[in-house]
């Protein structure tokens, strides 16, 4: 818990590198955390071979969800879109440098993954895409 608000997290929150909207874009996913009303959107431009060329996020949320979105978006640029389907909760926690997180803040941290995966699988509004209770 004690490094939940480490300098790096606050930095990504205050000065996000990948904040914005892509217009036009190839893919755009959005979802929210109904617990706190946080809303997140991720826009992607994808190469013909399926590689993510550009990505940005927009919306509003807490420091954890925003830092998570900034880090996640950074991490997916240059990757094959298909490979993203296998991203896990642990991958995101690794990006954030968290060992573990209480269930409520976990939902904040994983909102970006939920948006991404919900979009890739064509489902939204369901926590079941990534089983948050696991």
């Amino acid at each position, binding site marked *: 818990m004690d490094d939940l608000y480490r300098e790096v997290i606050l930095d990504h929150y205050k000065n996000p590198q990948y904040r914005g909207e892509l217009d036009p874009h190839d893919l755009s996913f959005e979802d929210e955390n*109904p*617990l706190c009303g946080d809303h997140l959107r991720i826009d992607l431009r994808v190469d013909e071979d399926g590689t993510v060329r550009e990505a940005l996020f927009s919306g509003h949320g807490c420091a954890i969800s925003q830092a998570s979105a900034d880090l996640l978006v950074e991490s997916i640029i240059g990757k094959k879109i298909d490979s993203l389907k296998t991203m896990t909760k642990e991958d995101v926690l690794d990006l954030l440098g968290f060992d573990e997180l*209480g*269930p*409520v*803040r976990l939902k904040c941290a994983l909102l970006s993954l939920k948006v991404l995966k919900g979009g890739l699988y064509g489902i939204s*509004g*369901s*926590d*079941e895409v990534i089983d948050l*209770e696991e």
Partner: protein
Amino acid sequence: MFNTQKILNDFPILTRPGANGLPLCYLDSGATSQRPNQVVAAAARFYTEINANVHRGVYRISEEATEAYESAREKIRAFLNAGSTREIIFTSGTTEAINLVARSWGAKNLNSGDRVVVTEFEHHSNLVPWQMLAAEKEIVLDVIPVLDDGTLDLDVYRELLKLGPKLIAVSGMSNVLGTIPPLESMIPAAHEAGALVLVDGAQLVPHLKTDVRVLDADFLVFSGHKMLAPTGIGVLYGKETLLKEMPPFFGGGDMIRKVFLRSFTVADLPYKFEAGTKPIAQAVGLGAAIDYLNLLGMDQVAAHEHELTLRAIESLQAVPGLTIYGPLGGNRGSAVSFTIEGIHPHDIASLLDREGICVRAGHHCAMPIHDRFRIPATTRASFYLYNTEADIERLCSGLKKVVSIFA
């Protein structure tokens, strides 16, 4: 070995000497069980250490409370061998759980002319909700009769299945007769006929290992207070595919995803059916009760009770003028109801009470089965894991005294 002495140490109410110097002889677990120290302590510990509302709270004790609540759900899932915690809905008890199914599943799936099958020995809680629905929606209520030996008339059941009922609502163990219907054949037959099955497990789950996947029950309901847990908590198990399609029941906090002034969207399972602040400490208590039962082993519990029950039936039959209703042997539950010629059940219970023996007298919330046997009331003794042979001896010598008073 089943160590009743060790068990009794966990139930102070059963060892303290009463007015007559003897400890309580509690033979009314069919109405509600006693609770071991471990369960009372678990609920008290919740209040004094991590008390907070669950979900949505980001501070530490709220997260701990949420974890305690959700881990109770997981214990229940494992106890029933359900596939997912999404299938485990906390309710205030069996009665609420049955009403939930009647109102939510029933409202959506039952229409005028549809049939629901119950049995003649159902508890009012598994009868009146269907009667209410029958009156509102003009569905037809069919009844499986009970034979003289207390078992179900399965020939009639097979005939009723041919009429294409939508649901069979059946008790897994009669709280009056002790009858255990053959669910292992009744459920597949119902499914073959296209009907779903709701098992009222209020008497079954506390006493016999219940595996929802082996049974293939569509709904199973039970109460914590009959299985060592606090009052105010119960469970609805439902197959996820069914629960998913059912409309929400209570509206309120926690069962929603989003609320606008004139509309709302619904939360995922199991929360969709858990509106408002639930009995959190009681759920934690139910988790502790399950730990206790698991430690003893449900098979051991069932074996102990079965032995006691057969012994009781044998001894009771030696009491002059006594008639037992329900199966006299075989695979039957521990509720033993009887009458004594010329002595009213209330008088029996009052006189036994003088000896510190607690039995129930009346219709046990199952009037129709009493009508069936043309008796207004019975006296019922029911056993649980903390009962001993000494309890049975006290019961029988108490009854002989009653008979002599009225001779």
